[in-house]
């Protein structure tokens, strides 16, 4: 058997379905060329939507409003709890309400540059165009954005940009946008247009005659395995940051839906592009179950520093001004504390590696509000960031109004995901992926406040017309039933997997494997990666996988609410996905955005891209567990934003 690292290169991806012509006309062109389904016929078509976050919630509501029959799923007890709810800082839109030189063109430019030239131009431009409509839509739904005294919307700045285009609702923007989508979805549930299945988890995809036609899902309360059929399937199941065990993701966020789709034929693109967020609360002990983000918006007013001297253990208030190193302001004077996330994270790692980190284990830097409190007064700081300060104090037992916060980078978001074309369709016809679940818009690094923008753009505005087109072009799909041999096979495989997990009866808990995998990934596929480390991880992962299947202990049965079984089943998929992430990171010997290969850096330690070799999205095709996958390249063409070495100095 060939080793996993001996991947082969398959046919390049020739057609992304992005229209040609001037970039600002492409989306209009696509929408005009899209076929329509007669409103009377829409009732006869069924669409499955998995996930109820910003992307899934907005898509389900919109498709139902258009008259389709929607069957929707979430593993949580209510669609209102999807992890989009935890997004803090804000949502970008090129409204130019500040008259500060913003425009669709500039948001497009900032996003392509911020992504370190590894995103598809056509998609990013569409996202920038749609951004303005999203704000209108959300205001109409009653999202209580922050406002000025004149009654108009307020904005603030986020990393990697020099305009103020981020709309926000205190530190709870994700919550408010999600509740807007949830309420729109609720209206459709009440109207009978959406059949909602909460506490139900998708465990596999049903592909019949080459098309996605349904899913296998488990009722998490009764344990019953059910099948659901449709004309198309939409995955809005979020990212896979939980591969690292410790991340800012919710405990139950998982990769099962997208990984199972990948196993059934959907290409997985840029799996190694993960975002390490610079401002999270440092971990305190081995028991730690998750990491908590402190919003990027804090970098508007907080100043990041470490002591100039190594091993300076004095309390921060006793370190005089001239013995502090405000390293971001020093290295990047024009963007200062608001450099993009990948750059801020790496800089934090560098000063800690130098031995200048603060707090337990030297794994932290200060985020200091003393100047902001002096300038604006405590009241104003409280009004802007009050809930974040409270959260920090609750977790650390330290008062950030008195002593600077301690922060450290943590896994936060995954830019990689299922490969999709311009229509957000995966390589399996009829299977669409939206929001963080796809790879589309952020390249190798996502800018702050752009995840909310993308999730809602995909769900409210992009998917509905493109899905329409797919359904119109496939007016008569043969009905699929439980008797179909493919369906029986998928159900049998799913049941066998769960039964196997229950029958191992070993001596290690599922979590112990998850922790082990997470530590390995953080060490070798985290903020800095190199050939030796990645090869080590690639050797270790199959060993952990083997051990997992021999030693895992899952108590209880499959016919009840069994949270250990749910967890173990997700770990099965992490143990495969992690391998692909490492391989992708190994093969991309350049540095770009969040992917930093130590072998490829500029003399001053910045990421050095290799555009002539790696100006492509890497889309991987599954060939079997532990078997070398096939790489398909989608060449990235830059007609409007010329790739340059990113500079924020």
């Amino acid at each position: 058997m060939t080793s996993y690292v001996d991947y082969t290169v398959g046919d390049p991806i020739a057609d992304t379905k992005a229209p040609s012509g001037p970039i600002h006309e492409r989306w209009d062109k696509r929408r005009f060329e899209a076929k329509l389904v007669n409103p009377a016929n829409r009732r006869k078509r069924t669409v499955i939507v998995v996930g109820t976050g910003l992307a899934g919630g907005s898509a389900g509501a919109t498709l139902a409003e258009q008259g389709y029959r929607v069957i929707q799923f979430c593993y949580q007890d209510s669609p209102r709890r999807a992890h989009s709810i935890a997004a803090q800082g804000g949502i970008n839109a090129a409204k130019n309400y500040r008259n500060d030189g913003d425009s669709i063109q500039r948001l497009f430019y900032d996003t392509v540059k911020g992504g370190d030239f590894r995103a598809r131009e056509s998609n990013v431009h569409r996202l920038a165009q749609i951004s303005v409509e999203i704000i209108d839509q959300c205001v109409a739904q009653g999202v209580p954005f922050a406002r000025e005294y004149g009654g108009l919307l307020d904005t603030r700045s986020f990393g990697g940009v020099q305009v103020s285009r981020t709309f926000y609702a205190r530190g709870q923007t994700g919550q408010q946008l999600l509740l807007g989508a949830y309420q729109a979805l609720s209206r459709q549930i009440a109207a009978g247009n959406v059949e909602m299945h909460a506490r139900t988890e998708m465990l596999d995809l049903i592909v019949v005659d080459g098309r996605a036609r349904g899913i296998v899902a488990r009722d998490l309360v009764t344990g019953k395995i059910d099948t659901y059929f449709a004309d198309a399937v939409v995955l809005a199941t979020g990212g896979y940051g939980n591969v690292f065990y410790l991340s800012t993701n919710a405990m139950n966020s998982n990769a099962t839906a997208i990984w199972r789709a990948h196993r059934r034929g959907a290409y997985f693109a840029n799996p190694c592009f993960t975002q390490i967020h610079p401002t999270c609360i440092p971990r305190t002990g081995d028991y730690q179950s998750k990491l908590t983000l402190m919003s990027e918006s804090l970098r508007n007013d907080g100043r990041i520093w470490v002591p100039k001297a190594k091993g300076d253990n004095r309390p921060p208030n006793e370190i005089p001004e001239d013995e502090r190193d405000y390293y971001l302001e020093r290295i990047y004077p024009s963007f200062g504390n608001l450099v993009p996330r990948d750059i801020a994270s790496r800089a934090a790692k560098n000063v800690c590696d130098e031995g200048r980190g603060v707090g337990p284990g030297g794994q932290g830097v200060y985020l200091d509000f003393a100047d902001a409190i002096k300038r604006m007064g405590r009241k104003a700081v409280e009004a802007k960031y009050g809930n974040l300060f409270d959260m920090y104090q609750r977790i650390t037992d330290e008062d950030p109004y008195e002593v600077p916060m301690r922060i450290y980078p943590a896994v936060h978001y995954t830019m990689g995901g299922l490969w999709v074309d311009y229509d957000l369709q995966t390589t399996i016809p009829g299977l669409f992926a939206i929001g963080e679940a796809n790879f589309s818009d952020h390249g190798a690094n996502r800018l702050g406040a752009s995840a909310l923008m993308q999730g809602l753009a995909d769900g409210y505005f992009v998917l509905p017309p493109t899905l329409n087109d797919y359904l119109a072009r496939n007016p008569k799909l043969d009905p699929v039933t439980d008797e179909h041999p493919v369906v029986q096979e998928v159900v049998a495989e799913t049941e066998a997997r769960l039964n196997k997990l229950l029958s191992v009866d070993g001596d290690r808990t599922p979590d112990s494997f998850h922790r082990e995998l997470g530590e390995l990934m953080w060490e070798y596929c985290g903020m800095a990666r190199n050939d030796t480390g990645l090869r080590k991880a690639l050797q270790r992962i199959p060993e952990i996988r083997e051990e997992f299947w021999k030693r895992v202990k899952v108590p209880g049965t499959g016919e009840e609410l069994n949270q250990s079984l749910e967890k173990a089943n997700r770990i099965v998929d992490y143990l495969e996905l992690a391998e692909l992430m490492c391989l992708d990171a190994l093969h991309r010997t350049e540095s770009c955005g969040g992917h930093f290969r130590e072998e490829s850096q500029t003399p001053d330690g910045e990421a050095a891209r290799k555009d002539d070799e790696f100006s492509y999205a890497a889309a991987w095709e599954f060939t079997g567990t532990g078997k070398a996958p096939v790489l398909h390249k989608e060449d990235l063409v830059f007609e409007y934003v010329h790739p340059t070495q990113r500079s924020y100095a």
Partner: protein
Amino acid sequence: MKLTLRVWRQKNADAEGAMATYEVDGISPDMSFLEMLDVLNEQLILSGEDPVAFDHDCREGICGACSLVINGEAHGPERTTTCQLHMRSFKDGDTIDIEPWRAAAFPVVKDLVVDRSAFDRIIQAGGYITAPTGSAPEAHATPVPKADADYAFEHAECIGCGACVAACPNGAAMLFTSAKINHLNVLPQGAPERETRVLNMVAQMDEEGFGGCTLTGECATACPKGIPLTSITNMNKEWLRATRKAAKR
């Protein structure tokens, strides 16, 4: 820290439940309450017992999934969610009682997990603004006074955890329902459905089997997001206004 835990165990919705006693050791004061339960569960799995089922997800106080009654108080002794409660709020040697939300409208699913779908149905009855995708006017077309926007936000902060119901001696859902009504009814965008919203949501709330409100105020004291008790009085005003208006038509 070493602790004695008395935990409600119930196999499923139909089974009888009972308190079971467990010991945990080596608990750090910096652990969150749920991380302490993780320690217990790892212990239970290895000893071949069923781990304790409880709802949790974001573990940063915003998703509203976690829902434990700790020593008789919804979310425990601090005014926060269970996931943001830390063990430094307890002392070495303490005995801690852990129960699920107790309310007729929130039946127990298993152990500490309850069914809160009644909340979803209250929202479905009218907790939205009808604004189909694509129909929105320019966002700045309608300025909203800052005070109104702030008022709306303050009520929109509700995370739907259900602590208000669990804390209420009557098992009422007035604070949850009123929070959404206050959020939407104060905004100009919410005005067209102002009356139907309050009438339908209150009717649904009653139908779900939640208790009546006697304004004891336990709900607002337990609310991790600080939804004020005045939210309820304002909802009552909205309801009276809507009822009078409906009677005139």
